[in-house]
């Protein structure tokens, strides 16, 4: 039986006349690095806030470790979170902030994983400076230190690289990578698609508060109908491919060929090339997560909610 860490079950949230989240469901299993994708206003932050007990759903339920979430519920001790940007008491030092935050939850400093948290933050002597003197990147690193104090089983990260410069973004992504390699379950909300593609094993796409699709990131990317192949004989391959009824728009590109599948599978193309005695070096979808994301959003706006599995079959 799978070990469900986060469960969002039929949740809806309204703000006045606006449906921020509507009948939304998904779950995250232990060890998954789960991306929450969507444009601004899609309902990602509202969903994460409901998971963390900061907002109450109008209907439905959110669960952490199998227990319904309420404000200040005990399960929050097992979760470390950054919701939007990391924020602190500005007139206190980084170290003081960490200690006060930990003690406010009733914890003893002896029980906190302070050394590891400080190593992660890597702020050096700046840890004793007032937080108001920190750059946004330093605050974000301190935010990671804070969420790691309790050795959390689940990390909830809402737009963790927002407002950072490229160097800081790289630092934070490397940090997330290190944490995921240590086995943490992660729920990451982002509209930086490359971030999700690099970091996440699974993802869902939401828009206007509704689920568009969900699955593994490779499945999501694999919904593409455009593929790229590299072969030992490009001319022969081109001649063969243009005759295949399932393939259109075959073009030379770089060292290979790019084409669009009208129907059928990518493997059909591979089989045809190999059968013709052409040595196949590479066969891969051309699009990245960004393309899949935009395609899915466009389809979702058009009223259709494509299932990932259905999209794969059609390709």
């Amino acid at each position, binding site marked *: 039986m799978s070990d469900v860490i986060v469960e969002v079950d039929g949740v809806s949230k309204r703000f006045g006349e606006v449906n921020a989240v509507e009948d939304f469901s998904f779950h995250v299993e232990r060890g998954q690095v789960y991306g929450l994708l969507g444009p601004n206003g899609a309902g990602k932050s509202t969903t994460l806030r409901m998971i963390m007990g900061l*907002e109450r759903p109008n209907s439905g339920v959110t669960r952490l470790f199998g227990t319904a979430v309420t404000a200040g519920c005990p399960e929050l*001790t097992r979760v470390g979170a950054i*919701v939007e940007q990391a*924020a602190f*008491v*500005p007139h206190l030092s980084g170290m003081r902030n960490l200690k006060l935050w930990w003690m*406010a939850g009733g914890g003893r400093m002896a029980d906190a994983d302070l050394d590891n948290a400080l190593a992660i933050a890597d702020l050096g002597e700046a840890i004793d400076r007032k937080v108001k003197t920190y750059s946004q990147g330093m605050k974000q690193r301190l935010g990671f230190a804070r969420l790691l104090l309790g050795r959390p089983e689940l990390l909830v990260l809402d737009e963790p690289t927002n407002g950072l410069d490229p160097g800081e973004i790289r630092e934070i992504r490397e940090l997330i990578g290190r944490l995921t390699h240590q086995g943490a379950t992660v729920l990451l909300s982002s509209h930086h698609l490359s971030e999700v593609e690099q970091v996440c094993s699974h993802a869902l796409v939401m828009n206007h508060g509704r689920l568009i699709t969900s699955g593994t990131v490779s499945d999501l990317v694999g919904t593409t109908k455009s593929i790229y192949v590299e072969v030992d004989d490009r001319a022969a391959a081109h001649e063969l491919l243009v005759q295949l009824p399932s393939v259109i728009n075959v073009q030379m590109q770089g060292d290979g060929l790019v084409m669009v599948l009208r129907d059928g599978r990518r493997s059909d193309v591979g089989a045809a090339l190999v059968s013709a005695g052409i040595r196949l070096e590479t066969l891969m979808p051309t699009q990245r997560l960004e393309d899949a994301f935009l395609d899915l959003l466009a389809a979702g706006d058009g009223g259709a909610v494509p299932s990932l599995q259905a999209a794969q079959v059609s390709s």
Partner: protein
Amino acid sequence: MIALIRTEFTKAASRTRSLVILLLLIGLPTLIVVAINARSGRPDRDGGEGLFRLASQSGLLVPAAVLSATSGFLLIVIAGTLAGDSVASDANWGNLRYLLMRPVSRARLLIAKAFVAGMLIWAATILVTLAALIAGLILFGAHPVTIPSLGGLLGTFNISGGALALRVLIATAYVAFGFSALLAIGTLFSTLTDTAASAIGATVGVYIVSEILNSITQLGQVRYAFPTHYLDAWETMFTQNTYSKEMIVGIVVQVAYLVVVGAVAIAVFDRKDIRS
């Protein structure tokens, strides 16, 4: 709960604003005492009104005069600042959501914040009394006083040094407790906004409106329910040689505000969506 109170106290006490308030609470009473001294030493001046006229008789009476002068506005502003700021400042920093992602009930957090604000309000009132007492003792010494009852209409009465000290103690406690309603109202406003200045302004505004309405005698008994109506009831200890029954009623009114408005604040905060 003690850990929560300790963290909230550290946050509140370590602000630069707290240092400014501290200096103000020491400086202003000292300035008032110096002014009383300057006025009383000049034969062409009458020494001022009420407690100010009498204050130069004894350093033990000076705190009463200074409390009378500061409890009507300065202490209200300071108390309003401390109460109105309690939740809203964390919301303004974006830190509130991180506090609430800890396994701590919102009611406990709010009570801890209100408790710390209340503690600082008491500390501010005591500091005003102490600053005035020290300056008064230095300039006027510790003597018994002779006070004209009701401005001399009922003769005079004497208060010994010990009795004066006791009455100053009671007056200080009454004034500090008299801000309980303000504490509850300020805490409630603080849960309603993410801008500390708005919460502080609204809290002080309620007290100013209460003071204005309280001065309109045509409102009759309605005024008895205003949070400021009984704030000055303690002064009869010094001007009429009596412990007014209104002090008891004043305490009951403050407790009622504290319980009712405090419960509303907890209910509001407990159900609030935290978006800051």
